[in-house]
């Protein structure tokens, strides 16, 4: 099993200047905690929307590889974003899902992923040609590094431990989060 904050730090290091969208809750808190950078976009609510924001970014910026750090609960709320990503034909999206089998932040209640729901299989069914599940940090690094060099969209389901997130929080001035990210991406 993978520690989310270690994998998050690894992803940010391998991201270079490419943008990262953090999903609501622990995905964002760990991203902010271990790898805050102007190229990160944090959402404070909007559960499920990280994948759709990533798709919009990928459409707007074909020169970047856009990374989404999603949660299993969040993706399960917006599963229709996967076939939409296929339909839009984007090749520059790296969609990572931290799969801890449920809603960790609200008390680790089990979601479908705790009962055998296979998100990589769903991604393949939705049109991803590159969709893998990884269980170790080494495998995550290998898959993510390959995804960052690829010329097609990638989906990585990383099975993580339920360890809770860092108790740090990005700014609650949301237009500041917006503006910092936009300026970083425009420069």
């Amino acid at each position, binding site marked *: 099993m993978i520690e989310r904050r270690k994998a998050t730090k690894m992803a940010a290091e391998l991201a270079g200047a490419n943008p990262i*969208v953090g999903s609501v809750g622990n995905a964002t808190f760990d991203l902010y905690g271990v790898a805050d950078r102007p190229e990160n*976009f944090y*959402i*404070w*609510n*909007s*559960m*499920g*929307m*990280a*994948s*759709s*924001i*990533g*798709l*919009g*970014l*990928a*459409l*707007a*910026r074909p020169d970047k590889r*856009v990374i989404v750090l999603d949660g299993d609960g969040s993706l399960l709320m*917006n599963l*229709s*974003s996967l*076939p*939409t990503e*296929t*339909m*839009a*034909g984007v090749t520059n999206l790296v969609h990572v899902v931290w799969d801890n089998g449920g809603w960790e932040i609200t008390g680790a209640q089990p979601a479908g992923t705790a009962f055998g729901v296979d998100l990589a299989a769903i991604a393949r069914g939705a*049109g991803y*040609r590159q969709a893998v599940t990884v269980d170790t940090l080494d495998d995550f690094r290998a898959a993510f590094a390959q995804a960052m060099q690829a010329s097609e969209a990638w989906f990585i389901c990383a099975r993580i431990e339920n360890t809770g997130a860092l108790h740090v929080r990005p700014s609650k001035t*949301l*237009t500041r*989060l*917006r503006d910092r*990210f*936009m300026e970083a*991406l*425009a420069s």
Partner: protein
Amino acid sequence: MLDTSVRKAGRHKAENAPGWAHAILEAFRRENIRNLVFLPDTVMGRLLALADTDAFFRLTAVHREEEAVGILTGLYLGGQRGAMLIQNTGLGNSLNALASLGMAYKIPFPLLISLRGELGEFNPAQLVMGRAVRGCLDALRIQHFTLGREEDVEVVMHGALKTCFTAQEPLAVLLSAQMTGWKDEE
């Protein structure tokens, strides 16, 4: 994988597009709104058919309307403007994203919403959401205008889009069946 040769507007034909569709697309063009993120209905299909033949516009379909709010946010963060084209039923599917992303982060984009459950409705299941549209928008503090006559489209669209980007917030333009027509079905 995706066959990109597929016409995204389906069986509607650009040559049958009504005057209001031409005027709306010209207003979008004037404000450099290139991305039309949509879930179709038959009203919007007529506009999409016209846009689909115009290289200025990029059509991006979604499977659930809420996705469009996220996609338009990503587009705007990446430096591109877009519009959300839905039926009013889809407003109900999008409320939290509009509140917590569009309004809270101040992401400007117009919502073009065709109205069911208003004039000439034949489907009783459309009535309740139809009546709730303006109340939902008001509750979220999303400014809205209604287009009922083709001759109003140019000036209202021009003004609404300017206000939308000044406010840096989503803004809705509602397409009444008074202008777009309704089905003969009883």
